[in-house]
Structure formats: structure tokens, C-alpha cells
């Protein structure tokens, strides 16, 4: 165990525990859970591993829904606003985790809590109202059925405090649609893993938070000196201008390289979108950028990546909100071949209002569009909707059907893998999913991306290690020396990026402000200094990367090992991307070559110190991290590799 000093700052100090079945509320000391980890997701992972019995399903009352604000959240550290939401993954049955920014996390800390752990299930709809020490489980029947915007407005009116922060589900979560998100501050989504579906299953409509307290740091003057340097780095970094309003700045240039490397068209039929469609969607004068009315930042964020938009023409004119993101372009436009800016913008707004995960919508519903094209389903199955490529109106209607489980929406709401079994006719081949979760990600061109998405412990998402390619994204040295399309050395970059994400989710730092883009915002050395001056610890950069980050990843992997049959066989890209080539553009002919991918995967396991043959954890690897108890648990299930 690392000698690291005792915690004297940054934490709120308590974890709020709520039992919805028995209507009980209590608190426990945060420090008890923070020896092996540094906060946020780390605490959620530890508690889930400790308390959820093997065999528990996502819909069992014993499943936990965990919220964790990172340890630096509530301070002025750049981008320190993030919350991890963890639960059993409704798609994979293993670890589920979604990460969200905004203002709810800091407010939770000011109310006196680092994490909230919810167990049980209410019989009737309820919401949790947290005002400092006063925590109540309240009736939510008056909120049931309302979308996320309406829920916010009614709660603000009811509680009569403009400063409350709200995390809520929309009708989709209530209807237990698998791809439901938890929406915070009306626009920020904890989207993946079906966490909104779990919240709805527990009949928990919202968590309202208001805090009047403070967050102290161990060495205030020193902490601010580090902050000064970090802010200066953010100011001086030329990339901050591009990354501000990123969806608009990057994609309004039809020649931007991301259009070639990171896009999937028509549910995976191609990875190249026609130039005229890029322009139609993102034309600064008439496309999505023309709808931008302003830009917003999350709490204490020096980047400000989020457009505020209002649809300015067409039948959706007047619909507005924050939160339009790159994934909307990758997902709602490209995967459906929709270049109509109003239809795409509205589908994104609808997704937020109904409480859906945008990636689930994009990957799941574009699959249905392709089944329609192939004749596997027809108009009789779609309640008359013509699901033809480019039909934005049909997409908007289908999203509503999904949310309210109407007609074909009911079939899709229980998950696309389950729907494929019912539909038959080889339909599962066209579903781009990893470990059961529909995935919008590109695989055939960016190889590090493919490796990271395929091995993500939370199933088919890119943030647990996807690399943006080589060092061209910034002067910081990154392990490996590779281009986007290379297989060689890619694993080093993926593991390094995965480790930094572990730290960011423990500390609650947005990975956009952290290491994601490779820009010179915050580095791991900055993380170490902020933790030491903030929490009063004495941790080196090397210990962060090679101990705490490795523990974080291993806790989630252990949960997957214990609760599912996941192994090497589940760390592969979807079959389609191993069989079908890119049809056009500069990367025409590219696909995942299995022998090269497998070599990359070998190296990836070796770097994490997992068994190469099975992809499973080893006794030595876990014990070295001080996780002997975890090793024993896995050994009892006969799943530990004894070397």
C-alpha cells in the first residue's frame, strides 16, 4: 500500500445512502472507501463490487444506482464538475457507468455529500429532495409522464428555489426503455449503460440537490498557485479556440480530417459521407451552426464546448436548448444519412427531452432503418413509417415511438439484441453492438479507437481509451508513435488514455479539459499537484498512473468477470467491421484485419497485466495492487488466472 498521507481537503466527507424499498436514509464516512481509490467513480466501483451479490440483475431491487462527484469537484480546478453514475449495465449485465458534467455534482458536494448510493425500489413514483442535511423521499406522482424540461420547470416552481440542481429521467426511463439516460440541468446526459432505465425501474423520477456548504482544500495558497498555472496553460493553448464550440468549429469545415477517420454511414455500410451532405448539414449560414445562439460552459470550465441552439426555420422552428454535441453529427446525421439540419437538430432536442441516450438512438434506430432497406421489416412492421435513408421526419417519429413503447417502439425498447432475436433473418449481423450495447463508434479506420471501444468495460463506448491518433493532436508526449490507421503501438496509447480516464473520473475532471484531445490543458503532473495541495496527500505522478488508475480499471473488470461470462471473445469489434470494407473515400478497402487486431489485443492485455489467452485478470496482477480480496472473490468463481 502506498504511503500517501491523510486526507485533509476536497471531500465533502459523507456518502448518502438511500433505501427506496424501506424508505430509509443514512450516511457513511467517505474516507472509509477512499484508501484504494481517489473518489468519484472509484468509490462507486468499490461499493458495487462489495455489495452486489452475484446473480443480481439490473432490475432487481438489490441493484445499486450510484452517483459519485469526483474529489476535486466543487473546487475551482478547471473542468472539475463531473459525476459518475454507475449501476449494473442493462445491456451487458456487467459494470455500467456514465459520466456527466454540469452543475449538479458541485451542488451535491456543497450539500455535504461525495456520493449517493441508492438501493431498493419504490412502489410508487418518488423523487429525492436533498437540501443540505435535510433529505426526503417525496411523492413524484405529479411529475410522472413529464419530459425532462417539464420536470425541471415543475420542480423549480414547486420548491421555489432557482438554485436547485436537478437530475431526472424522462418518459423513456419511466417506461424502462433500455437506452434511457439521466439528464442533468436539462441538457447534460449520463447516457450510457442504461442508467436512466435503472432509475426508472426504481421509480425514482428525480434527485433535487441544493447545498449551502463549502469545500475546503488542504493548502489553499499553494492550491491557488497551481490553479493559476493551470488557467494560464488553458489560456495559452491555441487549440482552446478550436475546441470551444467544438461541434461547430470542427465539422463546419468539410475538409476536416475527422470526417474521413471517425464517421460511420448508414449503420455501418460505409465510413465516408459525401461532401455536399457535410456542407448541407454544417453550412455556417444555413446549417446547424446557423442555429447557434450562444455558447455555454460547465462549472469551472475554461474550454466552453457547448452550443446553445434554437432551430430557426422549418416545422421545428423555435425548439431550443443546450447540449448539441459531436455525437449528434456522427450519430443522428451520418448513421441515417440525414443532411437536413432541422431534422437532425430536432432529433437531438427530442432525445434530451424524452431522456434518451443519443448513441443508443443512433446505433439502435439506424439498425432498424437498414433492416427496412434490406426488406427484413416493412411498413406493416413500422406502423406505416417509411424508414428510408435520409428521412429525418421518420427518425423523429421513431424516437417518440421508442420513448412511449408504441408499436415497433415496444419491440425496440427492451434492447436491440433482444429485438434481433425476435426479428430473426440474420438481423443481428447488422447491429453494431459491443457486449450487448449498441455502439455508434467507428472501427475500420481508427485502430486505437476500435481497440478501446471493443475492450471498454462499460460496453462499446470510446472514452475508456480511444486515442485521437498520433502526437499530432498536441505537443504532449504520448506513448507510442503511430498514425490513426496503424495497428502498431496503438495498444500503448489506448492503455495510457484509459489510465488517464480512470484518474479523471476519480477526480471529476472533464476529460476534454484533461488529456483527451492531447492539448496542453491539464496534465497528469497537474492532477498530482492538485490532489496533493487539495486533499493533503503525497502522491506522485507515477503512482497515479501505475497504481490508482490501474486499480480503477481492475475494479470494473472484476465486476464484469464476477457478474458475466465476459472474456477475450467479447473484446472484438462487431463482426460487420471485420468482414465488410469501407466502400469509398481515402480509406476505401479498410476493414479490421483480425490477425493484426488480435496482436494489438495481445499487447493491450500484457500492458494491463491480464492473461493474454483469456483476457482475464491474474492473481499476481491483482495482489500487486492490494486487491487480494478481489482476487479471492474471482478465484471462488473459478475465474482467476493463477499466475
Amino acid at each position: 500500500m502506498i504511503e500517501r498521507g491523510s486526507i485533509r481537503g476536497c471531500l465533502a466527507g459523507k456518502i448518502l445512502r438511500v433505501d427506496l424499498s424501506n424508505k430509509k436514509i443514512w450516511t457513511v464516512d467517505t474516507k472509509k472507501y477512499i484508501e484504494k481509490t481517489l473518489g468519484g467513480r472509484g468509490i462507486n466501483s468499490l461499493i458495487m463490487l462489495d455489495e452486489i451479490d452475484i446473480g443480481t440483475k439490473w432490475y432487481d431491487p438489490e441493484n445499486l444506482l450510484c452517483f459519485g462527484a469526483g474529489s476535486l469537484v466543487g473546487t475551482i480546478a478547471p473542468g472539475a464538475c463531473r459525476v459518475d453514475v454507475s449501476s449494473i449495465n442493462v445491456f451487458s449485465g456487467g459494470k455500467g457507468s456514465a459520466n456527466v458534467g454540469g452543475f449538479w455534482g458541485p451542488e451535491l458536494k456543497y450539500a455535504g455529500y461525495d456520493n449517493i448510493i441508492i438501493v431498493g425500489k419504490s412502489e410508487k413514483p418518488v423523487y429525492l429532495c436533498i437540501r443540505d442535511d435535510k433529505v426526503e423521499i417525496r411523492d413524484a406522482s405529479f411529475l410522472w409522464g413529464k419530459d425532462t424540461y417539464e420536470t425541471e420547470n415543475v420542480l423549480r416552481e414547486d420548491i421555489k428555489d432557482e438554485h436547485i440542481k436537478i437530475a431526472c429521467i424522462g418518459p423513456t426511463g419511466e417506461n424502462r426503455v433500455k437506452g434511457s439516460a439521466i439528464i442533468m440541468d436539462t441538457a447534460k446526459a449520463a447516457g450510457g449503460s442504461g442508467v436512466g432505465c435503472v432509475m426508472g425501474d426504481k421509480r425514482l423520477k428525480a434527485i433535487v440537490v441544493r447545498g449551502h456548504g463549502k469545500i475546503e482544500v488542504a493548502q489553499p495558497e499553494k492550491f491557488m498557485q497551481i490553479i493559476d498555472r493551470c488557467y494560464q496553460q488553458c489560456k495559452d493553448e491555441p487549440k482552446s479556440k478550436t475546441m470551444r464550440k467544438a461541434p461547430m468549429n470542427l465539422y463546419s469545415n468539410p475538409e476536416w480530417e475527422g470526417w474521413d477517420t471517425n464517421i460511420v454511414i448508414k449503420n455501418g455500410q460505409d465510413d465516408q459521407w459525401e461532401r455536399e451532405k457535410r456542407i448541407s448539414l454544417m453550412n455556417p449560414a444555413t446549417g446547424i451552426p446557423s442555429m447557434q445562439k450562444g455558447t455555454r460552459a460547465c462549472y469551472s470550465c475554461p474550454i466552453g464546448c457547448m452550443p446553445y441552439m434554437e432551430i430557426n426555420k422549418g416545422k421545428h422552428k423555435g425548439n431550443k436548448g443546450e447540449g448539441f454535441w459531436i455525437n449528434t453529427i456522427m450519430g443522428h446525421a451520418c448513421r441515417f444519412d440525414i443532411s437536413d439540419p432541422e431534422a437532425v437538430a430536432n432529433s437531438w432536442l427530442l432525445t434530451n427531452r424524452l431522456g434518451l441516450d443519443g448513441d443508443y438512438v443512433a446505433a439502435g434506430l439506424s439498425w432498424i432503418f437498414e433492416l427496412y432497406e434490406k426488406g427484413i421489416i416493412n411498413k406493416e412492421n413500422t406502423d406505416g413509417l417509411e424508414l428510408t435513408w435520409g428521412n429525418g421526419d421518420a427518425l423523429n417519429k421513431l424516437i417518440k415511438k421508442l420513448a412511449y413503447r408504441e408499436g415497433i417502439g415496444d419491440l425496440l425498447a427492451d434492447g436491440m439484441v433482444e429485438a434481433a432475436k425476435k426479428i430473426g433473418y440474420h438481423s443481428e449481423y447488422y447491429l453494431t453492438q459491443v457486449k450487448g450495447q449498441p455502439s455508434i463508434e467507428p472501427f475500420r479506420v481508427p485502430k486505437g479507437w476500435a481497440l478501446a471501444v471493443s475492450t471498454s468495460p462499460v460496453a462499446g463506448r470510446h472514452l475508456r481509451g480511444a486515442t485521437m491518433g498520433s502526437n499530432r493532436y498536441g505537443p504532449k508526449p504520448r506513448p507510442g508513435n503511430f498514425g490513426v490507421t496503424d495497428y502498431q503501438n496503438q495498444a500503448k496509447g489506448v492503455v495510457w488514455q484509459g489510465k488517464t480516464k480512470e484518474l479523471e473520473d476519480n477526480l471529476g475532471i472533464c476529460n476534454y479539459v484533461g488529456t483527451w484531445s492531447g492539448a496542453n490543458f491539464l496534465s497528469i503532473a497537474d492532477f498530482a499537484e492538485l490532489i496533493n495541495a487539495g486533499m493533503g496527500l503525497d502522491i506522485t505522478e507515477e503512482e497515479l498512473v501505475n497504481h490508482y488508475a490501474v486499480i480503477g480499471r481492475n475494479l470494473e473488470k472484476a465486476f464484469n468477470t464476477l457478474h458475466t461470462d465476459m472474456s477475450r471473445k467479447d473484446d472484438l469489434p462487431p463482426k460487420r467491421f471485420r468482414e465488410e470494407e469501407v466502400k469509398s473515400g481515402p480509406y476505401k478497402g479498410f476493414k479490421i484485419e483480425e490477425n493484426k487486431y488480435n496482436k494489438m489485443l495481445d499487447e493491450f492485455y500484457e500492458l494491463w497485466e491480464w492473461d493474454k489467452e483469456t483476457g482475464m485478470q491474474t492473481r499476481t496482477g491483482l495482489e500487486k495492487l492490494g486487491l487480494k480480496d478481489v482476487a479471492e472473490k474471482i478465484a471462488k468463481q473459478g475465474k482467476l488466472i493463477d499466475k
Partner: protein
Amino acid sequence: MKIIRNNNLCYACKTCQLACSFHHTKTFWPERSSIIVSRNPQEGTIKWRMNNSCDQCTNEKEPLCVKYCIYGALQVGEEVKEDD
């Protein structure tokens, strides 16, 4: 010396509140901030309020809210512009 606010440049990150509370308390305590920013994500509006506890950051080279406003929405100038 006065603190001038420009709503058009504001991203509503509320970093100014944190900086201000640090000036007053050496902790991060938004309730003790002299400047309060609230934002309506549905309507896109941002509201400002400065209460009379603002001392223009006596003993600092410049007001901390100005220093940490990376978007340039807060500046030091000649007059207070109330632009709620």
C-alpha cells in the same frame, strides 16, 4: 475601479463565484460569493447579481472574478454596468 460585466461574452461557468468565495473565505463556498450567476439552460438566459459584500478584492492585484474569467466577460473599468 469597477467591475464591468458583459453578458454577451459570458459562458455561465460560474468560475467567478468560486474565485470570489475564495477571496472571502479561503474556501470554495458559492453561498459566500458577492457575485451570483444563474443560467436558464432552456431559455438560454444568464442572470447576474452583485451584492454589497464585494470589496473589489482588496489586497489582490486585480479582482479574482476578473482574473479567473477566461472568457473576458468580467473586466476592470470605470463604471458598473448592471445588465441583468
